[in-house]
């Protein structure tokens, strides 16, 4: 059944038990993103330590896809150099915009590969990217603040 392909166990697990959820101090920058079609929102904070993503904390409301993908995000980027985090982001965006034609690399995306099925539903791609857009925005703000 298609539905199970989309809602992989991994996604439902992250949805029910989100990693790193809650807004924490200290942080360098915060971003608030909205999905205008459904009103889903995420507020996400980034704390950098030199070139490393020291912490990502977030809060928000939204569907299982947006919540789970933000949870996976924290697993993927916290503790990583910014460059590597952005590579993972690019890989995730490519996967999501691939309409189910892109083969995900588990070494890069880890639990993120579970979203491959979501990529077949264009209306849900925005959900999966909501947290990532906030992350991108927050990093550029914190870099901007430092520059």
């Amino acid at each position, binding site marked *: 059944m*298609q*539905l199970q392909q989309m809602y992989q166990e991994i996604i*439902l697990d992250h949805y029910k038990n989100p990693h790193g959820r809650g807004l924490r101090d200290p942080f360098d920058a915060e971003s608030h993103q909205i999905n205008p*079609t*459904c*009103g*889903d929102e995420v507020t996400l904070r980034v704390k950098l330590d030199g070139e490393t993503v020291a912490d990502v904390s977030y809060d928000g409301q939204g*569907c*299982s896809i947006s919540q789970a993908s933000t949870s996976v995000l924290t697993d993927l980027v916290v503790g990583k150099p910014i460059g590597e985090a952005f590579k993972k982001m690019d890989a995730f965006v490519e996967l999501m915009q691939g309409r189910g034609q892109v083969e995900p690399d588990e070494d890069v995306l880890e639990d993120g590969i579970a979203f491959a099925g979501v990529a077949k539903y264009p209306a*849900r791609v925005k959900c999966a990217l909501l947290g990532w857009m906030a992350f991108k925005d927050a990093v550029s703000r914190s870099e901007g603040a430092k520059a």
Partner: protein
Amino acid sequence: MTTTAAPLDVATVRADFPILGRTVREGKRLVYLDSGATSQRPRQVLDAERAFLEIANAAVHRGAHQLAEEATDAYEGARAKIAAFVGVDFGEIVFTKNATEGVNLVAYAMGNAATSGPEADRFRLGPGDEIVVTEMEHHANLVPWQQLAERTGATLRWFGVTDEGRLDLSDVDELINPRTKVVAFTHQSNVLGTVNPVKSIVDKAQAVGALTVLDACQSVPHSKVDFHALGVDFAVFSGHKMLGPSGIGVLYGKRALLEALPPFLTGGSMIEMVQMARSTFAPPPQRFEAGSPMTSQAVALGAAVDYLSAIGMDRIAAHEHVLTEAALKGLAEIPGVRVVGPLDTEDRGGAVSFVVEGVHAHDAGQVLDSLGIEVRVGHHCAWPLHRRMDAAATVRASFYLYNTLDEVQALLDGVRETQKFFGVA
């Protein structure tokens, strides 16, 4: 509501709609419960548009040749039909691209009164003047008024909504006061289904000399509506929600008001005289139809009105009433489901929005979609209303003449399936 006419023969109706025969998602039979967003088109409407395009297509109003004559007759004939359908005069109907353009037309034309002659005085707005809307408006009947207020310095005010999803009229005499210039409100909410008491709001507005603008997008397709009887000054609705094409909407305006209203879009066909430095404008409705119009779309909307009239708006309303009642009753029986909007069918149309506790609307919609049930999820372009009703997003089923009780049952089963899938029941 009771009706003496024979009930609708849904099977016959469905046979007119080619798309209803298709399947979705691994061969599931299509259960289309999203007519509140856009309706489907019967063969008769598709055929009428195609026949026009294969026989009489030409520029209307501008040509003197035979094709142009035939095209103009078809276009203006459609206007006459549509005017009769909503109880108004031929010259009171303006074609727009959608209902949204209709609201913008009135709002911008009022703004243009600032640079128009004394005939436009009653449309002029400025600081101290008030524009009144409601908390249950679709963005189409809210944002244009916010913008008009911003451009003119007028103040935007609004009616609240009760917990039951009715308009809160307790402060009506404070809200509609001598400073009020316009009262813009919806006839039937696209989220709650609520039907508002148009006549009494119009009476209050008239008493203080305020104009009324009715959003009739969700009423005209589903019941007999007579704008003259309602007494509103302006009203808008969309073709695509009433079996007609996308790309065409209707603005109704009282003749005397349209005659005094400044133009909005300008260009060809709406002028009286043009010189390089200045121009004068044609009488309505032409004044408000700049450029090449939606010719074949008007013809097709005329055919849609014929189709609806042949069936009878009362029978359609009665049919939807039965479906809505079944949906409300069925949802009430499912624990963990909250209907957002009136729970009974009194003054209520066939949009049924709800929240499945513990399941986001997007996720619920996905499960329903996997079963072939096409509903809408989100805030349905009524974001402030969703905030008011304490729902980030809802699932909305909306019914039309081609829906069946079986489909309502499929929806109810689908909701239970959703709860099971997400482990909340």
